[in-house]
């Protein structure tokens, strides 16, 4: 039996190696997507079976006899003992947002190889380890948050830095996901109608759940999903009617303003009316669409059309500027390593876990699942013709705003594209144009629509599948927008409470309105500047988001390393120290380049200086003077935000290093802030 197990794992490892070899060493010949699935699935299985087991047994020494907070503090509300498979589902639904779909799609501009390898290696050695170790640390501390653990274990400054970093990430995240929605829905009456109708549908569900059948989530969601399906179909009739189509065709700035107003309403309205039902709806559709995509890829087995390495590894890419190092690692955060996950791992999950040993499945396993979603997004994006991919994701400042100019420019890069291809494709998916839709969502939607239509319906249903995919992405981006704005509002109220006590009261309506306006104003500002950015906004905002997210991951891994050192796990320190060092290197390099690079497409200050020089030389016409001055201010603001985040994290790293050296040398007695050991009262297997 043992021999059989060894042979089985050897076969899985060999299959994984063959898959990785096939995608890494293939040059020129079309490669099938099956290799991506085999490479990712087998690597993840081996990593889970051996690496996570090593961390669980040798580094963390998970103790099945130790009672978890869910057992000791069970109150049926926050602390709820939950079956490990159910909690895996909860945790996965909480960590998997739009990031693992959008990031890999954007990183496809380097070719399929760098992003795929980073997704697989980054998740196994970095992201999963971070989620797992932080979950373990939080379980041992009664479910304390990352900020609280940083304050107690590293120092007071650590806690403050974590809190500010979270708020900053929240603002940039909400702006950038808002921008993805704007770029997906601008001048798209079908998509706009479909998404707009989700608001009354969610409200109807909200009333159902609040007054008619309190808490009957499945019933309400089933009604919501049926109405959404009707909604997607009805969108085509709206697009076909000139007057309705006109009413639902919004320009990018109008759409951005609509989102800002919506964000404010979602934050200030009662949570049961809009936010919660939309979240249920989004969770249902998210799980369904991800499974459908996995099944579709396995069924269709699409051929990857993107080369392994594109010509844009040198940093001249049209989607965003910057070389493969460090920007591939910044662009794909969620799916490989995402600092935001550490907030969920130190949030609700540690309060619901039944046994310490379940942390391996839930912390490490859920992140592997998310990374797998990222690999599927990469497959969907890379199954498009490279020319189509670049036409959809490049800003008009680079490829022009007509199909002719785009086809000419992109063909000159070596990626053949005819104007007719873009016109036909837009027609097939029921859109006027697919040009200049930077943000990843539309190109992913076309990729998904191609896979789905090969499975069910053929080309006739391509438009329906495209708008279903757009609705699915936009729906759960809006869920992030709603929930993020609301949490951001609470954070702002918490900070305002230090200045004025009434403003700190979460239920006081003037405070709700004021703090909602502040948080919406903050992300709304970045969103609007992204919409007006001639380079498409994604070029500046997505790297900023990636840097902020990875910096938070570095904070989490530094906190984890400090705790491991205090636990006396000197031989196992590398488990968190290596990814922490890697992330600090990557994020500091990216921050430095984004601020100081002499290339105006890459460096914020260089772009500001270039525009200033243009004004001084008189190259900017008088009507465009105000707009250019605003762009200069925005570039400098982005530089200041990047610098502030990088400096805060450097301060935390310096503080932690000082602490580590003192503990290592024995100059300071390590003090752990764990909850005392209590033996579990539950029998084995209960």
């Amino acid at each position, binding site marked *: 039996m043992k021999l059989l197990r060894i042979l089985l794992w050897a076969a899985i490892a060999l299959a994984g190696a063959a898959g990785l070899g096939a995608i890494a060493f293939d040059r020129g010949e079309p490669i099938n997507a099956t290799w991506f699935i085999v490479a990712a699935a087998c690597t993840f299985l081996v990593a889970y079976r051996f690496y996570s087991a090593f961390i669980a047994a040798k580094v963390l020494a998970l103790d099945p006899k130790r009672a978890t907070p869910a057992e000791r503090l069970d109150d049926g509300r926050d602390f709820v003992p939950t079956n490990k498979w159910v909690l895996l589902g909860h945790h996965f639904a909480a960590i998997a947002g739009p990031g693992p779909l959008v990031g890999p799609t954007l990183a496809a501009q380097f070719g399929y190889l760098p992003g795929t390898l980073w997704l697989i290696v980054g998740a196994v050695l970095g992201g999963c380890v971070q989620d797992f170790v932080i979950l373990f640390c939080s379980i041992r501390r009664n479910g304390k948050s990352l900020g609280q653990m940083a304050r107690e274990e590293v120092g007071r400054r650590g806690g403050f830095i974590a809190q500010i970093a979270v708020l900053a990430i929240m603002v940039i995240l909400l702006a950038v996901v808002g921008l993805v929605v704007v770029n997906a829905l601008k001048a798209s009456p079908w998509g706009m109608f479909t998404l707009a109708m989700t608001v009354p549908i969610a409200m109807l569900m909200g009333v159902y759940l*609040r007054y008619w059948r309190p808490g009957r*989530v499945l019933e309400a969601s089933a009604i919501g999903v049926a109405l959404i399906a009707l909604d997607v179909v009805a969108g085509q009739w709206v697009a076909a009617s000139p007057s309705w189509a006109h009413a639902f065709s919004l320009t990018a700035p109008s759409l951005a303003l609509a989102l800002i107003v919506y964000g404010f309403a979602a934050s200030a309205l009662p949570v049961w009316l809009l936010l919660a039902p939309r979240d249920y709806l989004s969770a249902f559709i998210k799980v369904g669409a991800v499974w459908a995509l996995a099944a579709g890829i396995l069924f269709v087995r699409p051929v990857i059309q993107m080369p392994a390495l594109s010509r844009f590894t040198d940093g001249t890419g049209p989607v965003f500027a910057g070389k493969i190092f460090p920007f591939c690692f910044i662009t794909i955060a969620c799916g490989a390593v995402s600092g935001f996950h550490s907030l969920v791992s130190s949030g609700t999950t540690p309060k619901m876990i039944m046994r310490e040993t379940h942390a391996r499945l839930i912390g490490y396993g859920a992140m592997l699942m998310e990374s797998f979603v990222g690999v599927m997004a990469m497959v969907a994006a890379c199954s498009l013709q490279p020319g189509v991919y670049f036409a959809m994701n490049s800003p008009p400042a680079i490829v022009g705003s007509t199909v002719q100019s785009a086809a000419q420019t992109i063909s000159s890069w070596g990626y053949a594209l005819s104007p007719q291809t873009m016109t036909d494709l837009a027609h097939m998916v029921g859109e006027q144009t697919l040009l200049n839709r930077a943000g990843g969502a539309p190109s992913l939607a076309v990729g998904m629509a191609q896979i789905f239509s090969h499975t069910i319906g053929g080309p006739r249903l391509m438009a329906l599948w495209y708008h279903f995919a757009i609705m699915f992405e936009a729906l759960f981006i809006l869920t992030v927008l709603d929930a993020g704005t609301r949490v951001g509002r609470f954070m702002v109220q918490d900070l305002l409470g230090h200045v004025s006590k009434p403003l700190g009261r979460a239920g006081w309506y003037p405070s709700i309105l004021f703090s909602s306006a502040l948080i919406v104003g903050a992300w709304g500002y970045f969103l609007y500047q992204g919409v007006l950015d001639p380079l498409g906004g994604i070029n500046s905002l997505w790297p900023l988001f990636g840097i902020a997210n990875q910096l938070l991951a570095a904070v989490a891994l530094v906190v984890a390393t400090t705790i491991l050192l205090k636990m006396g796990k000197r031989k196992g320190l590398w488990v968190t120290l290596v990814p922490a060092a890697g992330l600090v290197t990557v994020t500091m390099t990216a921050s430095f380049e984004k601020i100081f690079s002499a290339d105006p497409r890459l460096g914020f200050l260089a772009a500001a200086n270039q525009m200033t020089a243009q004004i001084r030389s008189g190259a900017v016409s008088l009507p465009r003077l105000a707009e250019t001055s605003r762009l200069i201010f925005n570039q400098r603001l982005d530089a200041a935000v990047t610098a502030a985040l990088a400096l805060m994290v450097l301060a935390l790293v310096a503080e932690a290093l000082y602490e580590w050296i003192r503990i290592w040398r024995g100059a300071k007695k390590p003090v752990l802030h764990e909850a005392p050991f209590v033996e579990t009262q539950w029998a084995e297997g209960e």
Partner: protein
Amino acid sequence: MRRLIGRVFINVRRTRSRIWWAVRQIFGDAAYENYLRSVCVGGETAPGSNGSAPLSPADFYLDSLRRRYSRISRCC
């Protein structure tokens, strides 16, 4: 043969009820039942009961939403 079919039938029903149970748990449909069970096990001294009667389904639903959406519960 009849016994085999009967056993298959029982297994199918058991699997179906397990899946339904998992779906209800994952999507939060069974949250109120879990809460009642937790309060009943500990009686009025349970940490969640605060010595008072259990919340009604509507109050529990609102309370759980307030808790969930006042902290980070969704990632990017």
